[in-house]
C-alpha cells in the first residue's frame, strides 16, 4: 500500500508541466516516481479526451484528481485500509470536497491571479507556504465538532441572548466601515451581519476555519489580507479579527480603513466592553452549541442539524452519554463525532439530494448524476432514513427547511426513532428559531 492506513496525502502540481508545487499530509511522503505516475496517468487521459477524476487501489486506497482553472492540479490520495467495504463512494465525496476546499483556501490566501498566471514557479512555491497552516487544518480535521468543511454549512452556536449580540455586531461592523461582521465563539458563528450570510457558503466556512486557526494561536488581533474565492478572487479584502475573550472573536471584512490600531483602540472597547457578561454566557454554551433552554431527549447521543435555507448548522455530542438501561458500553466523544460524520456522508451520498450551490465542480455534478440515477430508481424522494449498527442507531430526516442527523443509544427501540427525531427537530426549532 502506498500510504499508511487512514491518512490522506495531498499533492499539488502545475497543470501544464506537472512540476510539483507542494505535498501535505501523511508523515511518509509518496516517492517522486509515484507522484509522477499519478500526474502522467491523468495527462494520458487528457490526451484521449477523457477526464480521470478518481480511482480505487487494490488495497482499498483512493485517488482523486482535479484541475483548477487550467493551472493547478490537486491530487488527494487516501490510504484506505480502515474503511468498511462499499464505503468508497462516501470517501470520494469527502476527497472531492477536500480538493475544492484546498483550492479555495489557496485562492483565499494568494488570490486567483497569482495561481492562474504563474510567472515564476519557484516564487509560487514559496508563496504557497502561506497556505499550509490552513491546508493542514483541512487535512487533519482534528477539531471535534467542526463539520463545516464537509457540510459546506457554517458551524454555528445559538447564543442565549442573540439580539444584544446581533446589535453589537451590526454596530461594530458599521463603525469599521464594513457590512460584513461576525462573532465567533468556540470556533462557531454565534451571530453575523446579514451580508456575512450572503457570502458563498464555502467562503463562510473557509473564513471560519481561518479565524479558528488565528484564534487558536492565542494572538490578540489580526489584519489579514483575504481574497474571497467566489466573491472577490482577484481583489483582496482585509479581515480584521479581535479576540474579545479567550474563545470569543469578532471579525470584520473591510477595505483600506480603519487601520488595525485604530479599530482596536477606538472601537473594540466601545462596542464590546458593555457586553462582557453576555459574551461569557455565550461561551458557557460551550460545544453544546444550543442554549440551556433546549433539552434533548434521553437516548440522544449526538446530533447535526442543518438549516438548508441559511446554510448553517449546529451539532453536538452529549457528554456523558445516557444509558437508560445501563447495558451499552459507552461510546467515546471522539467516536460519536466520527459516527455522526459517517452517517451524514452515508445519508447525503445515498438518499438526500444535496443543495445546488453555485460552485459545484463538474466532478461533483457528474457524481451527483450517479446518485440521481440511483434515486430515480425510487418513485419518490426519500425524506427519512435510518441505520442500526452495533454501536448506535442513527436517524436522518429532511424537510424543506432542515436536515437532521441523529445518533441514538442502541437501547432506544427502533420503532421510536422516528418520533425521537421529529420531536427533537421541533423542540430545537421551537426553542431557538434556528
Amino acid at each position, binding site marked *: 500500500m502506498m500510504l499508511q492506513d487512514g491518512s490522506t496525502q495531498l499533492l499539488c502540481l502545475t497543470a501544464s508541466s506537472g512540476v510539483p508545487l507542494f505535498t501535505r499530509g501523511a508523515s511518509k511522503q509518496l516517492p517522486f516516481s509515484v507522484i509522477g505516475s499519478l500526474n502522467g496517468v491523468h495527462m494520458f487521459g487528457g490526451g484521449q479526451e477523457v477526464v480521470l477524476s478518481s480511482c480505487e487501489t487494490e488495497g482499498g486506497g483512493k485517488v482523486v484528481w482535479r484541475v483548477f482553472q487550467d493551472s493547478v492540479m490537486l491530487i488527494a490520495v487516501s490510504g484506505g485500509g480502515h474503511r468498511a467495504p462499499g464505503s468508497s463512494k462516501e470517501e470520494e465525496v469527502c476527497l472531492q470536497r477536500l480538493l475544492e476546499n484546498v483550492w479555495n483556501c489557496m485562492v483565499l490566501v494568494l488570490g486567483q491571479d497569482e495561481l492562474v498566471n504563474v510567472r515564476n514557479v519557484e516564487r509560487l512555491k514559496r508563496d504557497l507556504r502561506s497556505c499550509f497552516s490552513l491546508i493542514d487544518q483541512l487535512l487533519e480535521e482534528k477539531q471535534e465538532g467542526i463539520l463545516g468543511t464537509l457540510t459546506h454549512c457554517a458551524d454555528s452556536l445559538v447564543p442565549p441572548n442573540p439580539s444584544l449580540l446581533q446589535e453589537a455586531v451590526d454596530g461594530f461592523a458599521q463603525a469599521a466601515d464594513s457590512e460584513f461582521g461576525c462573532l465567533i465563539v468556540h470556533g462557531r458563528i454565534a451571530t453575523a451581519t446579514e451580508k456575512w450570510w450572503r457570502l458563498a457558503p464555502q467562503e463562510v466556512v473557509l473564513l471560519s476555519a481561518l479565524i479558528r486557526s488565528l484564534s487558536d494561536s*492565542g*494572538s*490578540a488581533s489580526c489584519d*489579514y489580507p483575504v481574497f474571497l474565492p467566489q466573491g472577490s478572487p482577484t481583489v483582496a479584502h482585509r479581515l480584521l479579527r479581535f*479576540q474579545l475573550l*479567550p474563545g470569543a472573536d469578532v471579525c470584520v471584512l473591510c477595505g483600506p480603513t480603519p487601520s*488595525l490600531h485604530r479599530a*482596536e483602540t477606538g472601537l473594540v472597547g466601545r462596542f464590546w466592553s458593555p457586553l*462582557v457578561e453576555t459574551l461569557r454566557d455565550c461561551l458557557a454554551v460551550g460545544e453544546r452549541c444550543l442554549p440551556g433552554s433546549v433539552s434533548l431527549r434521553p437516548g440522544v447521543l449526538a446530533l447535526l442539524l442543518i438549516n438548508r435555507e441559511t446554510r448553517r448548522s449546529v451539532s453536538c455530542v452529549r457528554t456523558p452519554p445516557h444509558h437508560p438501561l445501563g447495558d451499552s458500553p459507552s461510546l467515546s466523544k471522539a467516536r460519536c463525532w466520527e459516527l455522526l460524520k459517517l452517517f451524514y456522508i452515508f445519508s447525503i451520498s445515498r438518499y438526500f439530494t444535496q443543495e445546488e450551490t453555485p460552485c459545484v465542480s463538474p466532478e461533483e455534478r457528474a457524481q451527483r448524476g450517479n446518485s440521481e440515477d440511483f434515486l430515480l430508481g425510487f418513485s419518490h424522494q426519500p425524506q427519512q432514513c435510518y441505520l442500526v449498527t452495533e454501536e448506535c442507531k442513527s436517524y436522518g430526516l429532511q424537510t424543506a427547511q432542515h436536515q437532521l442527523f441523529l445518533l441514538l443509544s442502541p437501547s432506544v427501540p427502533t420503532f421510536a426513532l422516528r418520533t425521537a427525531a421529529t420531536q427533537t427537530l421541533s423542540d430545537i426549532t421551537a426553542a431557538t428559531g434556528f
Partner: protein
Amino acid sequence: MSARGDASELASFTADMAQVPPPGSVVVSDWHRCKDSKEYFSKVLHKKRRKNFGLLESPVMPPHVAVDTVHYKIFISGKSGVGKTALAARLAGLNIPNMHHETTGIETTVVYWPVKLRESGRVLFFRLQLWDCGENALRRFDHLLPSCKEQVDAVLFLFSFTDRTSFDDLSNQIAKWTESSVGRVVKLVVGTKFDLFMHCDVSQRDVRDFQETWSLPVLRTGGEVSDGLGDVAPLLNCLSENLWHQDCVTAGPAGQRSQQETVTVL
C-alpha cells in the same frame, strides 16, 4: 529618573539615537524571583502557565493595591523564517508552533508584564502588544507596514544565529527605522535560535562588534521553553526598561507617562 547622567559611559552614542539605560538601572531586574512580586505575577499566571487575556480583559488587582497599566506597541522586524512568530509566542507564554508557517498578515500578541521601578519602588503592569507580520505579506500588501508603524513605541530587530544573511541585513533594517519620519522608537536586537550552536553562523565576536557599532542592546533567545519566567524575563525587563526610559526622556525630568495610562477593572 536615573541614567541620564552617565554621559561618559554612554559617550559613543550617535546623535539621533535615544540613550540606552544600563541594564537594571531603571527597573528591578529579576524581580520575578523576589517574594514581593508574587502577588503581581500571580495575576498574569494561571496554573503555572501564562494567562491568556482577551482584549476586554486585563490583570485585576485587589482595590487597595491598584496598579497602573501602561500600553506599548512593539513591532517585530526580521527576515522570513527568523522566528518572529515564535518569539511573540514565547514572550506571551503561548504554544510555539512546531512547524514553520508563513504569517500571511499582521498578528498581534499581548503580554502583560509586572515591573518594579528601581527608584520609586512603584509597580506597573506593562501591556506590551507585539506586532508580527510575515515578510512576504509586507512585500505583497502595501498597507501592512504603515499600519505596523502607526504609533509604534519600539522595534525588535531579529536575526537568527543560524542564518548569517539575517544578521548582515540588520544594519539595513535599523537604518530604515532611524529616519526622522518614524519618530522616536526604542530599538532592541534579538538573536534567535541561540541553542542551535552546531549550526551557528554568527560568532560572539560578530555580535560584540555589532553592539559596539550600534550601541543597541542585543539579547539572545532560543532552546526549550521552560515553564518558569526565567527565559523571558531578561528580554521583557530590558524592553520595559527602555520603553519607560524613552517616555521619561520624552516627557522631561518630571517624566510621567500621562497618555494611555489606564486602570481597567472588569
